[in-house]
C-alpha cells in the first residue's frame, strides 16, 4: 500500500516549481549588473521633502557610477538621530558608509570619520564657506563636507514698519524693542488682542542655545568657549545680553515664548500675529507661499547688533556629509559625498528647495537669484555666522549645550538671574571640557 503525504507533495512541488527556478535566476543575475559596490547612506528623514530629494539625487549618482545605493532614513529629531548614529559607531559598524551630520557634531564624529582631505582635491574644499570648513575641521582632519547651510536671521513685516513710520529694520536689539513695542501696542489697540512684537525660540532645547549664542556674540560677549578651549561665558557683556533678552519676555514677546521652538514661532508669525521673528531660512519659502497670511508683506535681514558698538551675529546651522571610518569602501562613499555637494547639486537644491548653498559662488548665480532674489541678502548673514562651541568641546558639547539651554530658559522664564546662569554654565563647562 502506498502511503500518501499530501503535505510532502506540496513541499516537493514548491521546491521544483518555485525555489529551484528562483535559485537559478539569482545565480544568473549578477552577470547582468555592473560590477559596483553597495553604498549605504544615512541621509535626511525621507518623510520630509528634503529627505526624498536627497534620496533621489543619491540614486542618480548610483545609476551613473554603476554602484548600488541603499538609503537609510533617520528619525526626524536631530538628537535622536545622533543617539542612533552613536550606537552604530560604538559597535564600529560597517553597515553604513556615509552619514549626513549636523553642524554641531564634527567634534563628536571625528573619531569615527575618515579625513576627507585624503579623497578630495584642495580646490574642491576651498570652494565652500571657510567658516563652515573651519567648523568641520577637527585637529586638522576634515570630518564632513558642507551639504547645505543655515543661519539665524531676522524676519520683519515691511507693511507694519511702514504703517508705523519706521524707515527700515532695526539695527540694534534696543531699536528692535522700541519698534516692536510701538507696533504691538498699535495692533492690539486696533483689535488684534494676540498680536506680539517679537517671537523667537526660547524653548529649553538646542533652539534657545542658538538664540543665546547670537545675543551673547552680538553684545561682544564671546562664544561661551573660545577656540582655545578657554571658558569665556562669565563676562559682563554676556550678562547684559541675557538681561536684554529677559526684558523682552512678557513685554514685546509672549510669556509662552519660553516654550517655543522653531515651528511654534513660525506659526504665530505666519498667521500674521507678530511684527518680528528670529528664525532659520526655511521659514521664508513657507511664508512667501501665496496661501500664507503674510505673503508679500515681509523681508529678511541680519539680526540686530547688541548696542551701537555690537556686532551682527547669526548662529551657523546646516548639515554636512561624512564618510565612516568603518566603511569598507571609503573612496566610493567619498565620491558620493563629492557628487551630493557639487556646485550642480547645490544649485539644484537651492532652486528646488530654497535651501542655502555652502558655496559663495552660487550667491551670484543668475538662475538662483531669479528664482529666490532674497538669497543676495544672505551673504552678509552667512559672513556673520557664529559657530556654537561644538568643535572644541567634541563629545561634551551635549552637556555644554544642555547647561546653556536650561539656564538661559530659566532666566527667560524669570526663575534665575543672568549672573547665576552664566556661573552655572561656567561650572558645567569646567567639568566637562577637557
Amino acid at each position, binding site marked *: 500500500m502506498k502511503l500518501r503525504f499530501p503535505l510532502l507533495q506540496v513541499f516537493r512541488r514548491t521546491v521544483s516549481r518555485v525555489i529551484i527556478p528562483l535559485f537559478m535566476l539569482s545565480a544568473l543575475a549578477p552577470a547582468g549588473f555592473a560590477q559596483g559596490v553597495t553604498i549605504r547612506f544615512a541621509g535626511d528623514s525621507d518623510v520630509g521633502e528634503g529627505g526624498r530629494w536627497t534620496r533621489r539625487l543619491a540614486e542618480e549618482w548610483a545609476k551613473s557610477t554603476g554602484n548600488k545605493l541603499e538609503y537609510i532614513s533617520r528619525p526626524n529629531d536631530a538628537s535622536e538621530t545622533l543617539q542612533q548614529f552613536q550606537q552604530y559607531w560604538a559597535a564600529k559598524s560597517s553597515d553604513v558608509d556615509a552619514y549626513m551630520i549636523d553642524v554641531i557634531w564634527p567634534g563628536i564624529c571625528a573619531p569615527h570619520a575618515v579625513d576627507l582631505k585624503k579623497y578630495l582635491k584642495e580646490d574642491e574644499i576651498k570652494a565652500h564657506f571657510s567658516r563652515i570648513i573651519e567648523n568641520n575641521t577637527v585637529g586638522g582632519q576634515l570630518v564632513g563636507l558642507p551639504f547645505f547651510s543655515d543661519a539665524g536671521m531676522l524676519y520683519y513685516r515691511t507693511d507694519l514698519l511702514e504703517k508705523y513710520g519706521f524707515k527700515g529694520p532695526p539695527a540694534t536689539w534696543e531699536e528692535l524693542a522700541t519698534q516692536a513695542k510701538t507696533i504691538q501696542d498699535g495692533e492690539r489697540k486696533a483689535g488684534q488682542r494676540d498680536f506680539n512684537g517679537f517671537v523667537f525660540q526660547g524653548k*529649553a532645547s538646542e533652539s534657545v542655545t542658538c538664540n543665546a549664542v547670537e545675543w551673547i556674540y552680538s553684545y561682544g560677549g564671546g562664544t561661551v568657549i573660545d577656540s582655545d578651549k578657554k571658558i569665556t561665558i562669565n563676562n559682563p557683556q554676556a550678562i547684559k545680553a541675557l538681561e536684554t533678552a529677559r526684558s523682552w519676555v512678557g513685554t514685546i514677546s509672549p*510669556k*509662552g515664548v519660553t516654550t517655543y521652538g522653531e515651528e511654534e514661532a513660525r506659526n504665530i508669525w505666519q498667521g500674521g500675529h507678530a511684527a518680528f521673528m528670529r528664525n532659520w531660512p526655511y521659514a521664508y519659502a513657507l511664508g512667501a507661499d501665496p496661501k500664507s497670511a503674510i505673503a508679500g508683506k515681509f523681508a529678511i535681514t541680519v539680526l540686530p547688533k547688541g548696542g551701537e558698538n555690537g556686532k551682527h551675529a547669526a548662529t551657523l546651522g546646516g548639515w554636512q556629509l561624512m564618510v565612516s571610518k568603518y566603511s569598507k569602501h571609503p573612496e566610493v562613499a567619498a565620491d558620493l559625498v563629492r557628487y551630493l555637494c557639487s556646485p550642480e547639486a547645490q544649485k539644484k537644491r537651492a532652486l528646488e528647495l530654497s535651501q542655502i548653498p555652502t558655496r559663495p559662488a552660487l550667491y551670484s548665480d543668475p538662475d538662483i537669484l531669479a528664482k529666490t532674489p532674497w538669497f543676495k541678502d544672505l551673504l552678509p548673514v552667512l559672513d556673520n555666522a557664529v559657530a556654537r562651541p561644538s568643535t572644541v568641546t567634541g*563629545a561634551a558639547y551635549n552637556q555644554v549645550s544642555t547647561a546653556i539651554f536650561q539656564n538661559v530658559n530659566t532666566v527667560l522664564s524669570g*526663575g534665575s538671574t543672568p549672573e547665576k546662569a552664566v556661573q552655572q554654565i561656567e561650572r558645567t563647562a569646567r567639568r566637562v571640557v577637557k
Partner: protein
Amino acid sequence: MAKSVELLDYQRKLAWWLILPAVFVVLLVIGYPLFQVLRYSIMEYRLDGVTAPAFVGLANFKYILSDPDFWVSVKNTLIFAFFSVTLEVILGLVVALIANSNFKGRTIVRVAILIPWAIPTVISSQIWKWMFNDIYGVSNIVLTNLRLIPEKIAWLATPETAMPVIIAVDVWKTTPFMALLLLAGLGLISGELYEAAAIDGATGIKKFFWITLPLLLPTLLVAVIFRTLDALRVFDIFYVMVGGQGNMATMATYNRQQLIDYLDAGTGSAASVVILLIIMLFVVLYTRLSKTSFQ
C-alpha cells in the same frame, strides 16, 4: 512522627527544585542588570565607543549629590508624588463609592471611568500639552472667553503653573485606576454590617467612618504604595509636557539625560542607584506603616 519529618524534607527539596527556574529567571532579568548598574556606578564609563572605561570610586556619586539640578529633580518628584497621590486617593474613593452604589447604567459608568487610564500616557500628555498651549490651547480660550483670567497664561512656561497642570493631568489619568482598586476593596465588605448598623440607627456618615473606611484600609494602603512608587518613577508626562526644562526635571528624566543625552553610563548608573535608595526608603516606610495598621 519521624516519617512525616522525612516527608517534609522531601517536600522542601522538591519545592526548591520547583522554584529554581523562577529564581534563575529573576537572577537573569533583575540580578544581572542590577549588578551591572552597581558596577558602572563606580566607573567612568562613556558610551561613545572612544574612551575606555576606568574605575573612579565614588566620584560619580559625589558629583550627583553636589549637583543642584539633581536636588531640584528630587524636590519636583516629591512634590508631584505627594499632591498627585493625595488627590488621586480622595477622588478615587469618591468615584469608587459612587460606582459601588446601585443605579441605572452602572456598568457603562464603570467602563467609562477607565478610558483615561486606557490611553497611553505619551499620547494623552501630548493632547494635554496642546490643550494648554498659550496661544491656541483650548484651556486659555475658554478661560479668557469666560473672563475667568484677564489674559492668556503660558501654563507650561514656569514651574509655578506647569507643576499644578501636570499634577492635574496625572490625577485625571490615574484616578480611574485608584477607583478600580478601591472598588474591588469595597466589594469585599459584607452588606450585613451595613444592615446591622442601620438597625442600630447609624447615619450614612457614621457608616462610612466606622465600617467602610476601617475595612477598606488594607486595600487603601496597597493602592497608596502602588501609586507612590509609580509617582516616584514618573517620566512620560514630564518628558512630553516640559521635556528639557531643567527646573522641571524629575529623578527619572534627570537619569535619562545623563545616560542618553550625555552617553555617560557612569554618572547615569550612579543616579539610578541613588534613586533606587530613595524609593527603597519609601518602601521601608510603608511596610512599617502597614504592619502597625494591620495589627
